[in-house]
């Protein structure tokens, strides 16, 4: 019985994530646009897949990935070997970003659009090469950002410095980046920090800050996500320069 009520609670939890979107879209479709839903059947199947998939996915994350990830983050923080820590930060950032579902979907879309716009060859090969490159770039940049963030927490440097320098660099590189990549680059910052990345990275930051003397978990523990959503913007623009050439 308790398992059943737990599962029902979990399904409801997944549903709550999607509900506001459904409500707004339904309101607009029926009251504002006043047309029946196009492809209602297909959309309903899709919504069911999204809710059901999210439910199973979150259930799995919480029974498998999060406990190991959090425990390891804590063990590493108390291990005291700085180089392993930095490397772990990089590896965690890279691997969680590659698995992020939103990135998978958007990168594919960006590849098709780039091919339609004629900036890359319109063939399956060159599209998948572009998409793969994009995802690796984003993952690499998140890895580097987390490694940097770990160094920041160990050294106790203020986050503000990184933010200032980072944003200044972004604005500078924007002037040289090809126009076709700028939108995708700025969006990639928000895409990376989603379902898998945020909990694992936050655990690492809070674990580290709690284990190093003189660090405040709130001031130092947060901020990894901020770096992880800043770095991809810069790196994807640089990727754009290497693929399309300078503006």
């Amino acid at each position, binding site marked *: 019985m308790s398992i059943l009520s737990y599962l029902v609670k979990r399904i409801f939890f997944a549903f709550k994530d999607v509900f506001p979107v459904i*409500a707004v879209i339904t309101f607009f479709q029926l009251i504002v646009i006043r047309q029946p839903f196009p492809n209602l059947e297909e959309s309903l199947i899709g919504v069911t897949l*999204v809710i059901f998939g999210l*439910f199973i996915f979150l259930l799995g994350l919480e029974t498998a*990935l999060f406990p190991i990830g959090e425990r390891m983050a804590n063990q590493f923080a108390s291990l005291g070997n700085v180089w392993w820590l930095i490397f772990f930060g990089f590896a965690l950032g890279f691997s969680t970003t590659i698995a992020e579902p939103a990135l998978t979907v958007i990168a594919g879309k960006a590849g098709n659009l780039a091919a339609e716009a004629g900036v890359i060859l319109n063939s399956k090969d060159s599209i998948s090469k572009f998409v793969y490159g994009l995802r690796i770039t984003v993952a690499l940049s998140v890895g580097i950002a987390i490694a940097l963030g770990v160094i920041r927490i160990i050294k106790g440097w203020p986050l503000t410095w990184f933010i200032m320098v980072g944003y200044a660099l972004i604005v500078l590189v924007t002037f040289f980046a090809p126009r076709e990549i700028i939108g995708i680059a700025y969006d990639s910052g*928000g895409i990376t920090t989603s*379902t898998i990345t*945020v909990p694992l990275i936050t655990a690492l930051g809070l674990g580290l800050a709690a284990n190093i003397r003189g660090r405040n978990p709130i001031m130092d523990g947060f901020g990894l996500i901020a770096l992880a959503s800043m770095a991809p913007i810069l790196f994807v623009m640089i990727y754009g320069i290497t693929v399309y050439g300078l503006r």
Partner: protein
Amino acid sequence: MNNEFLNSSLAILWGTFTDILPILLVLGFFQIFVIRREIPYIKDICMGLVLVLIGLSIFILGLERCVFPVGAQMADQLAAPNFLTDGKIDVFEAGHKPAPSLYYWTYIFAFMIGFSTALAEPALIAVALKANEISTGAISQWGLRITVALGGAIGVTLGVYRIITGTPLYIYIACAYVFLLIQTYFAPKYIVPLAFDSGGVTTSTVTVPLLAALGIGLSSNIPGNSPILDGFGLIAFAALFPMMTTMAYAMISQYLIKRKQVEEIDSNE
């Protein structure tokens, strides 16, 4: 069950497996070679991994089959000449760009999507709880949630306006960054890391594909706009503006508390 469906399901399952393989390698490598301790509850973990694999595959299938098409459909319908002009299509003729004010329903839609999705975001609820603790009550949970949601709503609305007008993204972003940096300088120190993290928090896995589809759909429906130049950027806006509103909220609450204290001192004298 036909063969094609089976094949595409297997392909997605395989793709998902290769996606989460790096996480497994990283965790496995560090556990075995660096931490060198046995993994407890290995059975539970294997079970959980199977769930992750299946759940993620179904979820991605749903995103591709539903969330993306629905976002694109909404964009198509909201930007359709018939809907915009009540049948007076001549506004659109001769290749002229339609006036941005015609799209008022689209702005309202963007605002509502931005607001409601941010408000329901579970990660935001957790962040709001923490912020309430560290500010010793100066920042109320609901206050912060509504602040962040408003930020998301303003961001998406402005982003849609940008797509409709086809103005370059970097101008908006550069202005926003300058504003953000000035704010960072003046805002109470404890809010800065939280504010910068709150940007990433609003853009969840479901919102991101929907916003991307909306942006791409709108830009391909508006004469003279191109999806690759104008279609992206909604997610960036949705992530940027909550940072501003969060810091603004902290600044205002601090100011109010100070003023109250000053008043109390005055009335005591």
